[in-house]
């Protein structure tokens, strides 16, 4: 069986697992936790398209996430839009924001780009807290208008299945990008942008494509957030923790492959959910910090990089 067929079979299997789970198990916390882990995987996968594949560190992941969240809120407030319409509009709005950030890369590289993305998130946050229509600093209430499909007991169960689909679509997209000519062009940009341009790589076009894809996926991740919480305040949508976790996950899992954010997201996401319950949510940042420290010293190329090194050693020995 070739690797692509295996990937799509496994992805379909995982989606079915998420979609059919409510028929056999209804514990609310499980779906809540699964949603959070899947959201982390999707955010990390989206971040990694730009950060890991292309070498541009986005410190404002929450700006794109919140763009998705607030587009959803506007859609619901304006026209009581169903979930699918919210998702599409949110992804489109965040992709547009991504394209604009792509143009920034014309002038801003390295740490200056990172600072600009951080600033972007502050600017958007300030806009939102002063925007009465979406609730300003008080926040907004959102009730999902869609009817639950038969077999689903709560909206959380449905949203968990939806996020599973989004995350799998995001991972499939990242995998397709990595294996396409676009992926090799992005890797060239990451290694040396000036040299890539001289070798015929249309760097600006590629960066705009990838910032749009990355932004769109983050917007998608944010689109169901209001439906999930029913009440969103700006500090939750523009959470710095979310921006940091989106960076930490690929660093821990491995940045040079689509699989890194998946592995890192499953591990870190589950760990965070566990400590939230077993200790307290306040431990989360300490856990992320400790995991990053361990990773940077023991496995600088992430878990996948460390596994690769081990495999290579084993092969050389035999």
């Amino acid at each position, binding site marked *: 069986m070739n690797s692509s067929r295996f990937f799509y079979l496994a992805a379909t299997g995982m989606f079915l697992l998420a979609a059919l789970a409510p028929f056999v198990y209804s514990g609310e916390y499980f779906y809540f936790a699964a949603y959070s882990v899947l959201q982390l995987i999707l955010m990390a996968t989206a971040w990694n398209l730009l950060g890991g594949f292309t070498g541009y560190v986005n410190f404002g992941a929450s700006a794109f996430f919140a763009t998705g969240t607030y587009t959803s809120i506007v859609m619901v407030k304006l026209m009581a839009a169903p979930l699918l319409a919210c998702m599409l509009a949110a992804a489109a709005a965040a992709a547009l924001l991504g394209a604009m950030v792509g143009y920034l890369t014309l002038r801003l590289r390295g740490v200056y780009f990172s600072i600009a993305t951080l600033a972007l998130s502050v600017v958007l946050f300030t806009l939102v807290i002063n925007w009465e229509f979406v609730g300003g600093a008080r926040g907004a209430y959102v009730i999902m208008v869609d009817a639950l499909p038969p077999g689903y007991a709560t909206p959380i169960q449905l949203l968990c299945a939806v996020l599973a689909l989004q995350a799998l679509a995001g991972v499939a997209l990242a995998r397709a990008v990595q294996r396409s*000519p676009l992926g*090799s*062009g992005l*890797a*060239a940009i*990451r*290694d*040396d942008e*000036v*040299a*890539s*341009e*001289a*070798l*015929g*790589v*249309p*760097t*600006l076009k590629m960066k705009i494509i990838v910032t749009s894809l990355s932004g769109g996926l983050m917007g998608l991740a944010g689109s169901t957030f209001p439906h999930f919480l029913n009440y969103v305040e700006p500090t939750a949508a523009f959470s710095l923790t979310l921006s940091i976790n989106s960076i930490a996950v690929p660093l821990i899992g491995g940045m*040079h492959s689509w699989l890194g954010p998946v592995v890192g997201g499953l591990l870190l996401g589950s760990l965070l959910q566990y400590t939230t319950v077993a200790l307290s949510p306040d431990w989360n940042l300490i856990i992320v910090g400790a995991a990053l420290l361990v990773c940077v010293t023991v496995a600088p190329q992430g878990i996948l990089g460390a596994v690769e090194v081990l495999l290579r050693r084993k092969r050389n020995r035999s």
Partner: protein
Amino acid sequence: MNAPILLQASGIVKRFGGFVALEGVDLDIRPGERLGLIGPNGSGKSTLVNCIAGALLADEGSIIFDNEDVTRFAPHARARRGIARSFQIPRPLTSMTVAQNLHVPLRYARRPPLSAAELADAANEILRSVGLLHKSAHPARGLTQVELRKLELARAIAMQPRLLVADEALAGLSGSEIEEILALLLGLKEHGVAVLMIEHIMHAMMKFSERIVVLMAGRKIADGDPRQVVQMSAVVKAYLGE
């Protein structure tokens, strides 16, 4: 001498703030010609080369390549039209293997696009011709200085250029290594590739160049047969002083 002109740069002006790096430089290159560009440090050689390859945009003047005005084109657009360059300090793509370093220009600069099999064959063929085939699967970051120089040239050759701009391709090499790289550059003539070379090593330059252009403080002060140019009093003065 009435062969068609491949590249015609006219009246190139480039300023960096108040400093004028190029003050209206004209430069013609004919197909397959080997042109040497010399001048003291700071005379504007690299700036001119960057204006031709597109890394810098000229403030004034025009660059016509193969009857097309490329003055405002991005570097990748010029690369696709046949202007390749190698860098003064080699710029390998360090996360990739040597072969993958060639796949990038083969994939992005070659029109029509190559199939996957053609791409691999072409990469191997070029690596063989520059003597790097045995390093094909090695990471590019582990190469020696002379191997990096070869990789720079291999990547440029992979673009099937009509003009190669070689910015100090010999810098930092030993005597035998210089001969090796020079032989590669001379071999390009067979493929009809014109080469514009910047170099400080004069014996290599005299051997290589069919014509030499001398820049001095952003102006062209000589242009012609290498043996005559190096005896011109203005050139001697530029290098040695009064």
